[in-house]
């Protein structure tokens, strides 16, 4: 289970220094743990492309941020993602909530978010792993560590 306290603990163990975010209703449940006394520096952005820009500056400055957004924000942030990953070649790491993932799997939604999230990440050439209810924060940490070890961008998609 990907709950706030276990995610924060895993991120800290990975050496993550900052969380730049614009949460959705699922990821937002992590806020008490992220913003609490045992949390991480939490940077609240106004738009998702801006969050990626802030993370780029942190990476250039020697820190290890992650960006936490919903897939709708990923769609908005394409140019920032392209620039940071492919022009600046920084090891950006994203945690992205996929709205309506489970309903889409069951054929019970017309929400187009699950249709486009993975193809868009593939188009931007960002490797990703989907984490569902069966996964834990340890799985998130494995994906993060692998991307960092390979000095490349990466993402986890949180099924919602």
């Amino acid at each position, binding site marked *: 289970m990907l709950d706030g306290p276990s995610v924060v603990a895993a991120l800290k163990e990975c050496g993550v220094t*900052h969380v*730049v975010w614009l949460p959705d209703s699922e990821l937002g449940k992590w806020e008490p743990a992220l913003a609490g006394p045992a949390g991480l*520096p939490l*940077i*609240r*952005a*106004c*738009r998702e*492309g*801006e*969050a*990626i*820009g*802030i*993370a*780029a*500056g*942190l*990476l*250039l*400055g*020697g*820190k290890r*941020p992650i960006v936490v957004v919903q897939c709708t924000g990923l769609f908005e942030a394409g*140019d*920032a993602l*392209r*620039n*940071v990953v492919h*022009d*600046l*070649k*920084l090891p950006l790491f994203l945690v992205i909530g996929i709205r309506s993932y489970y309903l889409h799997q069951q054929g019970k939604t017309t929400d187009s978010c699950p249709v486009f999230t993975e193809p868009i990440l593939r188009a931007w050439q960002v490797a990703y792993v989907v984490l569902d209810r069966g996964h834990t924060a340890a799985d998130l940490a494995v994906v993060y560590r692998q991307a960092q070890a390979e000095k490349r961008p990466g993402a986890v998609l949180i099924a919602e």
Partner: protein
Amino acid sequence: MMTHRQALEVLAAHRGDRIVVTTMTAIGVWAELSDSPLDFAYIPSAMGHAPALGLGLALAQPGRGVIVVNGDGCMLMSLGNLVTLAAHPANIYLLIMDNGLYEVTGGQSVAGANRTDFAGIARAAGIARCYCFRTLAEWRAGAAEALHGAGPVAINLKVEGRLGQQTPKAPHPMPEQVARLQGALS
């Protein structure tokens, strides 16, 4: 009014050892005034995101200070940046080069050209230290105060628009710029 070059000459005199992030027209002008590993010519860029990048740098390097030279067109793309800057105090000095034009695309007007009060917007966003300099004399007189002390600071500079500008070229390839900057900060 002042020219872009005149405005940046004043900045060069006060820059110290801070990081300077430039965008669009300022890239070419600044390269004529400075060639430091702490210069970051943000091109190729994600237009509108230089203040965000500068904030990240300023948060990562709190003792250093970051100056971002942004265009008015760039600023209009991400006005929310001003709210974010106010919410996460850091030593970032945001210059908004206000000529009402998209110079490098042929001189088309930006939305709200010559009507937008960028310093007023920044102030309303919660940035306490906001300035507007309309002439070179004003900028020369006020630069020392505006460019020092605790950030964030927003500085609106009224500069002359120039037609016939080309898309600027970075003085160094991006991989080299990234390596130089990271090397200087490590």
